[in-house]
């Protein structure tokens, strides 16, 4: 294929310009790879922590009601639904916890530990003590790690809980849990029966958490529960719509960012090709005189755009990979309050990031090559030959 050999010779005869174009494309590809890896890492971490630390679906009381009565029937109904792995009912109420001179306002949750563990994998978040300590309806309490830190307490200490309309009650700290979310600062857990007693409510709950097999089926299932029970079933997607909207917006900004970065590298390709076309006017005229079709001329210059782009993409993938490894190895810290509980910049190095950046770049580079290639293919052979 003579078009290919001409394209290669044109490029190899412009080594310096080729180098700059390849660097421009490579840097754009590398930047996009790092950016995609960061966004995807961030998104995966957010979704992971959200999905892991929250019920996939939460059933709240009916409209105009604050509690769910006769909840065992609801639990039986939910357990029979396809796709539901675990169900855990809880009672949540506001309380104040005191230890010596430290007082913190908290959300006290009464739970059945084995059920809650099946829904939220609580056991893996326990940093001290045992979740099982809540099995018996005694005065045991598990605190969020940040809450424990603020109260300056540790395992074995006794804190005093004050709930509205009830006398102060002492609880022994039997566990500390760290989920990595803001909930660690305000959450405390006790045995469901004991918490119900504390609030003098009888056997009622304020909600039921559900774990399902396919997290992306949560919305549909929540709607079904909603329709069939009159209870208010809310999926994790709906509960975290703000975060997901933020991520979505971030991705849209990302797309604009990709286009701008790739446009810059595309211009560098267009620039070198325009220069080659201007320099090779006589040569193009002679090729036309020798019987080269206009399509072949177009092909030569598009091949040049493709070769330059491909070289840039390959180099960019290597640089991008190295950048990613460096960022992962140095662990860039970020304030968890601003990053939904994340304490470092997460990076997800996945093959599809490289494919997306590479393919996107190649498309832009080929588009950038169209104008100079068309200009070359439309030349008048007589004018081109006599221009020299």
């Amino acid at each position, binding site marked *: 294929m*003579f078009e290919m050999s*001409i394209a290669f*010779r*044109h490029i*190899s*005869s412009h080594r310096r310009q080729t180098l700059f174009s390849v660097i421009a494309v490579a840097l754009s590809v590398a930047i996009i790879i790092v950016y995609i890896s960061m966004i995807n890492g961030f998104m995966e971490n957010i979704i992971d922590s959200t999905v892991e630390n929250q019920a996939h679906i939460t059933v709240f009381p009916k409209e105009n009601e604050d509690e769910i009565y006769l909840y065992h029937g609801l639990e039986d109904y939910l357990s029979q639904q396809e796709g539901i792995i675990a169900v855990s009912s809880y009672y949540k109420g506001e309380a104040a916890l005191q230890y010596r001179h430290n007082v913190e306002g908290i959300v006290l949750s009464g739970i059945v530990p084995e059920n809650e563990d099946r829904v939220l994998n609580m056991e893996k978040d326990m940093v001290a003590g045992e979740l099982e300590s809540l099995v018996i309806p005694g005065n045991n309490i598990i605190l969020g790690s940040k809450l424990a830190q603020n109260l300056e307490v540790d395992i074995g200490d006794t804190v005093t809980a004050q709930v509205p309309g009830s006398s102060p009650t002492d609880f022994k700290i039997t566990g500390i849990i760290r989920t990595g979310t803001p909930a660690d600062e305000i959450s405390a857990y006790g045995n469901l029966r004991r918490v119900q007693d504390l609030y003098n409510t009888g056997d009622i709950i304020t909600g039921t958490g559900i774990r399902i097999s396919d997290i992306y089926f949560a919305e549909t299932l929540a709607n079904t529960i909603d329709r069939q029970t009159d209870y208010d079933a809310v999926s994790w997607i709906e509960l975290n719509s703000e975060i997901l909207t933020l991520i979505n917006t971030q991705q849209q900004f990302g797309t604009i960012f990709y286009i701008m970065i790739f446009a810059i590298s595309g211009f560098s390709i267009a620039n070198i090709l325009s220069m080659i076309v201007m320099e090779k006017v*006589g*040569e193009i*005229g*002679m*090729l*036309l*005189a*020798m*019987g*080269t*079709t*206009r399509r*072949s001329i177009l092909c030569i210059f598009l091949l040049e755009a493709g070769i330059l782009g491909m070289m840039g993409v390959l180099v960019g993938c290597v640089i991008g990979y190295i950048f990613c490894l460096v960022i992962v190895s140095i662990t860039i810290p970020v304030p968890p309050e601003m990053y939904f509980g994340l304490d470092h910049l997460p990076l997800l190095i996945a093959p599809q990031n490289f494919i997306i950046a590479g393919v996107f770049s190649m498309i832009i580079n080929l588009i950038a090559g169209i104008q100079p290639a068309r200009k070359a293919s439309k030349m008048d*052979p*007589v004018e081109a*030959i006599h221009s*020299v």
Partner: protein
Amino acid sequence: MSDKKKIEIRDLTKIYGDGVEVRALDGVDLDIEKGEFLAIIGPSGSGKSTLLNMIGILDTPTSGTILLDGIDITTASQRQRSKIRNQKLGFIFQYHHLLPDFNAIENVMMPLLINGIKKSKAKKIACEMLEEVGLYDRANHRPNQLSGGQNQRVAIARALANNPDIVIGDEPTGNLDSKSSDIIYDLLRKLNKEHDQTFILVTHDERMAEKTDRIIRLVDGKIVENSKVE
């Protein structure tokens, strides 16, 4: 029509103009027979290069016809024109127009590769052509490593690579000194006799034109002389 007739030009007119009309060719009639070695001469702006570009299908006339082997090439499609240029025509210009990034043999191979001939066969033919123009030993030299005369000889080898019926030369010696011009002219004459190909040369050089078989003199786009050289 005689069997030997290769090119029949009838009432060929080319008008350039963007506001002011310029008749570069004005009703030219001309028959050129196979194997002829003819020169087109005339003052600057007389239309000789325009006529050559028409015969070479590099340009299209405003009116009139050019029959090549009985086929009107003025109405051919872009693809057909490319094919005819590649297979039936060879071009030599004042400036050699060799591809600077390719060496001599690769330049000679180029029209063969455009014609779809395999690389190995193209290389063999190119070697033979370079041998014919006496530059086999310079096969691997790039144009910037060859003299003007040598580059023009490579351009001749390239023009003849596809064994075309017609070789068109637009001032092929215009850029060379008289010694190199004589060498090029002698070479063209030798190839014309050996290959029985039609050579149509545009030249300013009356001395060179006198050495051809026929002289066509153009003035203001019209043929004013069409005479055999004795």
